């Protein structure tokens, strides 16, 4: 009975001797090489048989029928190819002559491959350098690198860069190895057809697994982020969400909701969104607007209509709290309004920075795992905003 067995393909495909001895050891266990796929090597399970394997580099991408024919006449049967690497096999008892009896001559067969690999390695290196530059640029957008990381904008790109770095590393390794092999051959030293492969296999298997995990992670993260994202209209009554409500700051029974942006069942002026990212798995953002009848803004700009918004993150790494606060200030802080951002000691926060300018009140704070930014437009005292922030941040700070 013939059974097909798939094994993960070693990533160091340029190691000729190791592959030859691996195939031979597999054949001795009854696994006979059938095909080299993109990611898997296909073996057919049959009777164990002592078999020699040789890998020959063809100058052109495809091996010529003439070459196959010539090898077959000497007892070497063509098995499979991957790139310019062609695998031939011969039963040990046939005692077929070696494919290459002159290492110096064999080194000439590597010349084209050597050139191509070197060219490839340089190309990949340049492409990766460009990608890194691009990601670094995205990362530094708005000069808020930590926040960009929290929001997950750059995580995927960073993972992609890691994957690309690995690809660059592999092509560089391939180029260097082939160059070295060409040199040893030209010095008259033949390829070791029984090179030990086990250690390399373990290492490349581990690296390949990491590679797959990273690649899959990079591919699914944005989808997870989109899938986890929810936006809802804020209920009128209080919630146990870690967001500061307009009513608890205004403390005015006459306060009514103002809904200028209601659309698609969501009141965008009075909403909260939940988001997820790898480094900040709990994120809330809210806006709320209200009016108080018969009250006007001082300065005659119409009816008094206070508003409040909250942005809050629960971090995986609490040590990043201070950096997130500083990026919050850079990204959201109304610096152009003037006035100072004052750091204040407060028992309920690890860090508290407030900014007050006329009716604008901003609170930046972090405590434990939680980072919070509250912006309030209205006439209530800033201490009420701070108290509410303290109460809300305690909900997710542990």
């Amino acid at each position, binding site marked *: 009975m013939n059974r097909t067995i798939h094994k993960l393909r070693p990533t160091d495909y340029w190691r000729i001797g190791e592959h030859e001895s691996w195939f031979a050891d597999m054949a001795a266990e009854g696994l006979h090489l059938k095909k080299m796929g993109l990611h898997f090597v296909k073996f057919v399970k049959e009777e164990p048989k002592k078999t020699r394997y040789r890998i020959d580099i063809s100058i052109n991408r495809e091996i010529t029928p*003439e070459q196959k024919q*010539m*090898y077959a*006449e*000497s007892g070497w049967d063509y098995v499979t190819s991957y790139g310019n690497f062609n695998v031939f096999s011969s039963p040990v008892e046939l005692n077929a002559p070696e*494919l290459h*009896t*002159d290492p110096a*001559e064999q080194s*000439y067969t590597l010349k084209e491959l050597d050139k191509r690999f070197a060219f490839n390695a340089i190309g990949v290196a340049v492409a990766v350098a460009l990608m890194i530059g691009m990601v670094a640029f995205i990362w530094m957008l708005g000069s808020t690198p930590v926040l960009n990381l929290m929001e997950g904008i750059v995580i995927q790109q960073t993972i992609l860069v890691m994957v690309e770095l690995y690809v660059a590393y592999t092509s560089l390794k391939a180029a260097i190895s082939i160059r070295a092999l060409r040199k040893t051959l030209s010095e008259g030293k033949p390829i070791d057809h029984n090179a030990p492969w086990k250690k390399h296999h373990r290492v490349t298997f581990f690296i390949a697994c990491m590679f797959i995990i990273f690649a899959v992670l990079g591919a699914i993260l944005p989808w997870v982020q989109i899938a986890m994202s929810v936006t809802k209209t804020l209920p009128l009554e209080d919630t146990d969400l870690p967001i500061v409500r307009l009513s608890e700051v205004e403390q005015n029974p006459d306060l009514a909701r103002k809904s200028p942006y209601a659309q698609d069942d969501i009141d965008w002026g009075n909403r909260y969104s939940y988001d997820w990212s790898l480094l900040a798995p709990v994120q809330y953002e809210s806006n709320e607007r209200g009016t108080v009848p018969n009250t006007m803004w001082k300065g005659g700009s119409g009816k008094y209509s206070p508003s409040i918004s909250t942005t809050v993150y629960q971090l995986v790494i609490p040590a990043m709290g201070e950096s997130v606060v500083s990026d919050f200030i850079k990204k959201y802080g109304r610096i152009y309004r003037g006035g100072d951002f004052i750091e204040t000691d407060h028992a309920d926060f690890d860090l508290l920075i407030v900014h007050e300018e006329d009716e604008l009140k901003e609170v930046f704070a972090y405590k434990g795992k939680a980072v919070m930014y509250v912006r309030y437009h209205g006439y209530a005292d800033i201490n009420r905003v701070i108290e509410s922030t303290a109460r809300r941040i305690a909900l997710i700070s542990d």
Partner: protein
Amino acid sequence: MPYSGGPMTEAMYYVLLALMNPNHGYQLMNAITEVSNGRLHMGPGTLYGVLTRMQKDGLIALTEDDGRRKTYIITIEGELALRNEYSRLMALVQDGAMLREGDRNE
């Protein structure tokens, strides 16, 4: 590396020598063993590599190509290069003649 005179590899020398008579693949391997008086058993990989390279360099050419089987023959340039190499090797051997006298003196 295109051939531009100078010392040939052993493989090149013997393939050219064997191709003084047109020949193909497997038989050519045997012919090489023959012209080297059994000293050289050239593997098919080495042979194929040398053939491709020398064909590119114009030292040998195809006389017949029925798709599956290609028959090679030495070209005029090839023969010239081979004769030059032969003279070079002869000169080398003659220069080494003193070693033989040394043997006798022992």
